[in-house]
């Protein structure tokens, strides 16, 4: 768990969420409709309480389905009117594939 883990950090064994010192949201585990709630909470806080783009580090995510995509899409929809963007970092190949098929990179920034 990152140094910023005090701020709404979650790790229920299936999905983990924490905020890194640079403000990026570090997500790990399997994200689907049944597990996405803590991720969504962290994203909503970032949208509401911070300024600038919302950066999500997906390196630790091993599985992402439409339930997980829906969370990212909603985050984008909340950011878009203010001119901010969602930036996705370090997805594993299978997760990258799900993001591509879902059209997420058409609105989210692909930061490698």
């Amino acid at each position, binding site marked *: 768990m990152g140094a910023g883990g005090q701020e709404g950090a979650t790790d229920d064994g299936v999905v983990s969420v924490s905020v890194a010192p640079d403000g990026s949201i570090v997500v790990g585990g399997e994200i689907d409709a049944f597990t996405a709630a803590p991720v969504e909470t962290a994203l909503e806080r970032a949208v509401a309480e911070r300024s600038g783009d919302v950066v999500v580090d997906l390196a630790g995510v091993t599985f992402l*389905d439409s339930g997980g995509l829906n969370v990212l899409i*909603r985050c*984008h*929809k909340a950011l878009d009117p203010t001119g901010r963007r969602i930036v996705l970092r370090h997805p594993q190949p*299978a997760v990258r594939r799900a993001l591509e*098929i879902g*059209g997420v990179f*058409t609105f989210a920034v692909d930061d490698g």
Partner: protein
Amino acid sequence: MPTRLAVVRAVAAALGTARTEDEVADAVLNAVGTHLDASTATLWLLTADGTHVVLAYERNADPEAIARFARIPIAAELPGPQVIRTGEPIFIRSTADRDERWPAIAGTPTPSEALAVLPLSATGEALGVVAFGFPDERDFDGQDRVALMAVADQCAIALDRARLYQAARADAVANHLLARVAAVGVAGGWERAAAEIAAVCTDGFVDTCLVYVREGGLVRRVAGASRSYPEVMRAVVDRFPTPISSSAANATAIRENRGVRIPPLGPEAIAAASPAAEYRHNVGHVRFGDGWALPLVHAGQPFGAMVFAVPQGHELDGDRLRLAHQVAERAAAVMRSAAEFADHRAALSAVHEVLLPPGIPSVRGFDVAACYVPFVGGPSVGGDWWDVLTLPDGRTAATMGDVAGHGVAPVAVTGQLRNTMRSRLVAGLAPSAVLHELSELLAWTHPMAHATAIVAVADPDTGALAWSSAGHPPPLVTGGGEPARFLEAAPAPPLGVVGREAATAYADHETELAPGARLHLYTDGLVEGRTRGIDDGLAALAAAAVGHDDRKPLQVRCEELIATLVERPEDDICLVIAERSVPGAP
């Protein structure tokens, strides 16, 4: 007495195969008239609380004596209690001898003259007594006494073993019963679940089980099963719903949310229950031992009651009563989820009528199959849609989509998208233009919602296929003499995601369907699963679609494809297959 050793051996052999208390009693009492020259036999058992001796089994005993001594306090000055208290046998030479030693029972009729009253104890614990009566006066010499004591000892050991066996068996039976109740299916509705639970309960637990629910001011019986009185289940009781305010046990159990004991049912109780002649005619012969009415409770509120009754002469107490409580608890949960399931199904079918085509549309040049498998385990209903229609220019259009959103009833959005797509396609818009308009519309009307969608338009004469996708899983094309392929192009965002690039987000893509080729449109529920990534899911879909038996009707293949890929749906699943007809084929 015949060879005494032979008697003991014979009884011991009979006891060796006795497993239950009944079988033990039979083995001992049957010795009367076979191995022993006794004329009567009685077996008395100490109650669990140790306060009484109960006449449990008898052979040839006098009916008056049976009635009078069915249950005796342990402190009574009588032979049986005394034997239990002291652990020593009592031998009575004659009736005169008895009357002199126990004046309290002087004159009680008995078919025997001499009597041996023997303690039954195992591992130091008193279980009861067994008494053998003999037709003539008898002095009970030393060998007599040794032989009779040996029979009693064998009997006690067998009884002790039978109790252990029955206790173990009761545990197993209880667990099995509870498992069977919990396993009653909920798909058939709560009344059917109640009927199945009642049937399970009368299969080895109680004689009769009735299930009641409260409906306003009345308590109505909704299910019942009975081993001894199945005809009563079909007869009059249904026509006599009980007012909730009545003192009847079932009404009281519901009103006061507690178990209510029902006294043994006999002629007097029946007469008191209802003066109706029809009622007495139908129920007058019914006899029960103990009964209990236990409330069926959901979220702290009783919504019904279960009545359990055991045969005349039996009790429903202790472990068995606890088990009845556990059964009622499980039954309430099962009936509740069956009711919720039915509500959910009703909502779903209403949704289907609005959202989905009433049947498989018939279109020129294509054989079409479609399946919609709703996910019934969760609250979101009706997020997926599919549609197939013939356009004014003779081409066939197919649309499919999957709505997601917070605080939005996906069903409303789903209906709006499907119908608007229809009208824009009929107006002649290209697939990409349809998606673009719908995305703007959705962002405007339901800002919190988004949807993946796909639109495909095919020419039945040329096989030309135009399609456009909004973040939807890629269509699969199989057959037609070509390898399976997914239709993938530059990704585009879901509908409702109107960003800076929205104006150019959607593009039209072209391909061709060979004669016999099959186009598969589906929602992500078909290829997603918690254990596999999207590519694994796509590969499994392609393999299953290619491997399918072409001789089966397309609709059957459609259903089988879903069954092959998805064991247990975690989401709504939609699948449409359009197979391009082979020109000249029948």
